[in-house]
């Protein structure tokens, strides 16, 4: 994907530079709010914070954050990042911990130039102060790296997307990761607990993945595509190598989970 968001990131850069000089809490963020209002998607009601992962604190919390969970900005500033974990239903604690770890590990495995401004997108079910369940899309954009080139500050944008997808407790949390620098887009595979980039598969490999997801055997696939069963096996081996999955079952689970097949 050639479209990049380099320029808006420069604007953030300026903002954060200004913020650093003035003490970043002073970005009362009329500017930031204006930018986000226009460029952050238009999916639904959103609010945002700036998170400091070195101290696990919020550096800034938008005043209107109460529209998301029902708690005022002060509660977030007082309790730090941990405060967010209160909103997850108990059933999701493990799954959420896993995807957070995957996003954190993957992000920090990237070279600094790719990590900067990369975005982790989380799809979660949360509970509001009044007890209602709702679906929340969280975008964590890494805007500052620490001395070791790891995640330090993130701009977190929270959007209520209950109208897009029912907030059902049986839905496990999801995660995707976008790297604007290269246009890479990765999706989390719960069975391997790691990120997969499906763009690296060739069209033929995708055909084979699709047919496999329909529970076809190698010889059935071979028949359908008019190739030898051995070629199917070779393709499958390559797919597994590229995606880091141990076996086809892991990969098929992933494809069904993300609706990449039919």
């Amino acid at each position, binding site marked *: 994907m050639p*479209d990049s*968001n380099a320029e808006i990131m420069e604007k953030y850069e300026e903002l954060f530079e200004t913020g650093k000089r003035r003490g970043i809490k002073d970005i009362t963020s009329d500017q930031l709010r204006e930018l986000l209002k226009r460029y952050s998607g238009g999916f639904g009601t959103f609010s945002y914070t700036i998170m400091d992962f070195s101290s696990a604190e919020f550096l800034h919390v938008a005043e209107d954050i109460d529209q998301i969970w029902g708690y005022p900005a002060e509660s977030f500033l007082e309790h730090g990042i941990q405060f967010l974990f209160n909103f997850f239903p108990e059933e999701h604690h493990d799954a959420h911990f896993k995807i957070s770890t995957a996003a954190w590990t993957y992000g920090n495995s990237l070279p600094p130039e790719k990590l900067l401004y990369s975005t982790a997108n989380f799809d979660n079910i949360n509970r509001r102060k009044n007890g209602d369940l709702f679906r929340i899309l969280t975008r964590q954009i890494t805007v500052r790296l620490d001395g070791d080139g790891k995640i330090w500050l993130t701009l977190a944008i929270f959007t209520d997307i209950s109208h897009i997808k029912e907030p059902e407790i049986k839905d496990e949390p999801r995660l995707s990761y976008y790297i604007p620098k290269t246009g890479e887009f990765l999706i989390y595979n719960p069975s391997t607990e790691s990120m997969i980039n499906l763009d690296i598969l060739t069209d033929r490999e995708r055909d084979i993945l699709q047919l496999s997801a329909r529970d076809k055997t190698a010889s059935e696939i071979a028949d359908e595509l008019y190739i030898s069963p051995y070629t199917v096996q070779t393709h499958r081996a390559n797919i597994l190598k590229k995606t880091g999955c141990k076996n086809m079952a892991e990969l098929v689970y992933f494809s069904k989970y993300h609706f990449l097949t039919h």
Partner: protein
Amino acid sequence: MKKEHDIEQYRTRNFHPSGLLHEEGISLAQLIENERNSILPSPYFFVFYDYQLSETLYVSSSVEHLYGINKHVIYGGEEHLLVEIILRDEQPAVKSFVTEVWDDHYHRGEIYLTDRVFTVEYRVQRSNGDILHIMHQNEVLSFTKKNLPKITIARFLDMSWLFGDEKERIVKFYMYNRQTNKIEYFAEKLVFKHAPPRLTSREDQVQHLINHGFTSNQIAGKLDISVETVKTHRKNIKAKKADA
């Protein structure tokens, strides 16, 4: 096909902006630049459209990556390709639903307002058989001096990562107001309860030719495959239809 330099000229012209908010004009080039800098959670492409001239002004090149369609084909007046890629099972339902809801907003005058994002969600099928869950946004970016929509943008986001295998298929339409930061309108329509088994791209081609009255022999010739293969395809198609 529109000549590149015509487009360039057009791009640098200034348009009356969303008159309610700003006073100065804004160039299409600037609008495109702004759009490239959006923060979105998925791969996407966008299309700028002149609502008054009914003309496509700009198509971002990621349309090739996402839909497998060359952007110059869209410039050349083949905008309908962006609609025809909608999954065949749900295309009629999506079209009639969108027309209905859009007309409603039109009569209420809401498409003449600034900062409203209209979204419709549906699924598309690429030529390689992949199915994508698309979030299609429409927004008016600039108005004529009489406050009629001038430049509009359509964004097509691939939100497949957010959706799993769905039992029910529901098309959704909603309107977000950037000023109030709220969803102000929501409508949905059930397309089907259980997904019918889907044809492969080859079976689809065969079905298409059958619909046009070709015999198995003729189809074999056209697709450069053996008659036996065509018969197998026909058999599979029939089985899938019976399932549905």
